[in-house]
């Protein structure tokens, strides 16, 4: 369920980057305050464990498929939310860079979807409510399963929201939701059961690993955390709500995104040249700029009038030009290569 760069607009990607960067900064501060620097190597090595754990697959009876351990929830249970969030962020960074899972612009989204919900929503609100300070086998199992399922459901829902707000895919909101949620319910169930089983295993053999995380976290529930959570959730909701509203007025969303998510630096240049751009485009447009802000509903409704009659002449020149540009790109590459060979 990794978001990909190709499906995301800079406004959404930038907003999620800001939220994620804020969380990383906050968690890092929290970790630094923690005098126990034993945690830093532990986090890194457990992050590597998440990769290694995916080597071990069990067979799901009847279906013929196989399942393995997911990431966020087990980390939250073993490390507590702050350290777990940082670890999850680094796991996803490695995946983005090496496995091209997701992408750099979408990394903010992915860290938020797969890290924020297990660590800061499912863990404090579900796992800790069920387990309390004195865990028993039963509460541990139920808490781990439920929180893993809920965390993944929320994450999947946000994938849908981010895709729809980006407006690059034509998938309507309802279809996408119906597609994503049940699939991730099944995945979440498998993840929940495996997480619970591993937590039980640890609990039976080394209960002292689980106990300190539970007790320490309850004490340090600071007000800053609540403020930050409220801020992040508000950003998302306000940004989301306003963009729905604004979808009828394409320029409104631009405005809403600027005001709520603070992504000026990504978007400002576009806004500045917007008017000159418009006039330029009338002369040059091969595919007239349709703006990336509109949602697909709007597009299909308005498509008829918005598109001027297609002028085959400009289309051809665009096509020819595109091919030429490609050739030039290859040519430049070869010149560079020749030059390099000459130098050597």
């Amino acid at each position: 369920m990794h978001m990909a760069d190709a499906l995301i607009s800079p406004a959404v990607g930038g907003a999620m980057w800001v939220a994620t960067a804020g969380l990383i900064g906050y968690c890092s501060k929290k970790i630094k305050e923690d005098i126990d620097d034993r945690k830093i190597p532990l986090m890194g090595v457990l992050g590597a464990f998440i990769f290694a754990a995916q080597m071990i697959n069990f067979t799901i009876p009847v279906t013929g498929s196989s399942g393995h351990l997911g990431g966020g929830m087990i980390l939250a249970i073993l490390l507590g939310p702050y350290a777990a969030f940082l670890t999850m962020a680094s796991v996803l960074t490695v995946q983005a860079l090496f496995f091209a899972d997701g992408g750099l612009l979408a990394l903010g989204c992915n860290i938020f979807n797969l890290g924020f919900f297990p660590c800061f929503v499912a863990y404090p609100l579900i796992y800790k409510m069920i387990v309390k300070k004195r865990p028993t086998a039963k509460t541990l199992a139920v808490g781990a399963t439920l929180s893993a399922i809920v965390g993944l459901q929320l994450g999947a829902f946000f994938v849908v929201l981010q895709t729809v707000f980006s407006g690059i895919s034509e998938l309507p909101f309802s279809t996408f939701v119906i597609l994503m949620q049940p699939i991730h319910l099944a995945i979440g169930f498998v993840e929940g059961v495996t997480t619970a089983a591993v937590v039980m295993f640890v609990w039976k053999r080394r209960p002292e690993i689980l106990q300190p995380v539970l007790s320490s976290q309850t004490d340090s529930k600071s007000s800053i955390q609540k403020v930050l959570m409220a801020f992040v959730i508000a950003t998302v909701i306000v940004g989301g709500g306003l963009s729905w509203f604004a979808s009828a007025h394409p320029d409104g969303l631009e405005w809403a995104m600027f005001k709520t998510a603070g992504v000026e630096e990504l978007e400002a240049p576009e806004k500045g040249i917007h008017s000159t751009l418009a006039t330029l485009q009338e002369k040059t447009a091969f595919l007239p700029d349709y703006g990336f802000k509109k949602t697909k509903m709007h597009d299909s409704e308005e498509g008829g009038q918005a598109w001027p009659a297609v002028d085959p002449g400009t289309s051809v020149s665009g096509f020819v030009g595109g091919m030429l540009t490609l050739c030039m790109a290859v040519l430049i590459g070869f010149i560079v290569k020749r030059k390099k060979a000459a130098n050597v």
Partner: protein
Amino acid sequence: MAAIENNLFDIRYMETLASGSSTLHRLDPRAKLITTLIFICMVASLGKYEISRMVPFVIYPLALIIASELPILYLLKKMAIVAPFAILVGILNPFIDTQPLVQIGGVSISGGWVSFASIMLRFALTVSAALILICLTGFNGVCMALEKLKVPGPFVVQLMFLYRYLFVLIEEASRMVRARSLRSFDSRGLHFNVFVQLLGQLLLRTMDRAQRIHLAMCCRGFDGHLRLNRSMAFGYGEMRFLFSWSLLFVLARWYNLPVKIGSIIEGFFL
């Protein structure tokens, strides 16, 4: 299991590529990281029908690949592996958006196909840019750039930890899986109880290992920082790289270069 082992092989291979010594390899990681981010933002900010504007951006990955002699087929293969998600989400576009948009010759192409093509093109561009970054810089280089760019210390430190122990732990896990499969002749799948035992053992071993590592590091004076013995300098070459590429991206983003060239050519011949 094979997938992860392949990934491990991939990482090693990319790290080998990153140890090259071309001019691009030696460039300060910060310049490459920032340029890549600008590139991705510019590509992603293009509208969903603007294929012609997207084409000039191909120059960046292509030029880097050729100039630093990265294996292009290998990169294409890696991109193909992760393509399914983008295809899955994009493939419905042609069926939902059937408004004719472009006419080439007598054939008209619907907006859906155009936006599908733009999704695939932007997927190829963004993924290749990220892969090239890592193939030219290496993971530790990227981490150092992050640290210099004031990304919080604990995050960077444990990112490097993760990367260092990725190999160790994946190998340990694969030894365990291999040992089990050698001792179980008939049962091909792994039952859930056995799975939990294996995973739990691996987890406990991992935590013990983390403790040993920490003690060893404390003995050597660890104070929460990793000190890397590699100097970085953001000099003239880096500036030139960053600014010339950024200029090109900005030009390609705001001027429809292919159409300009196309109309010039047409005006010349017709």
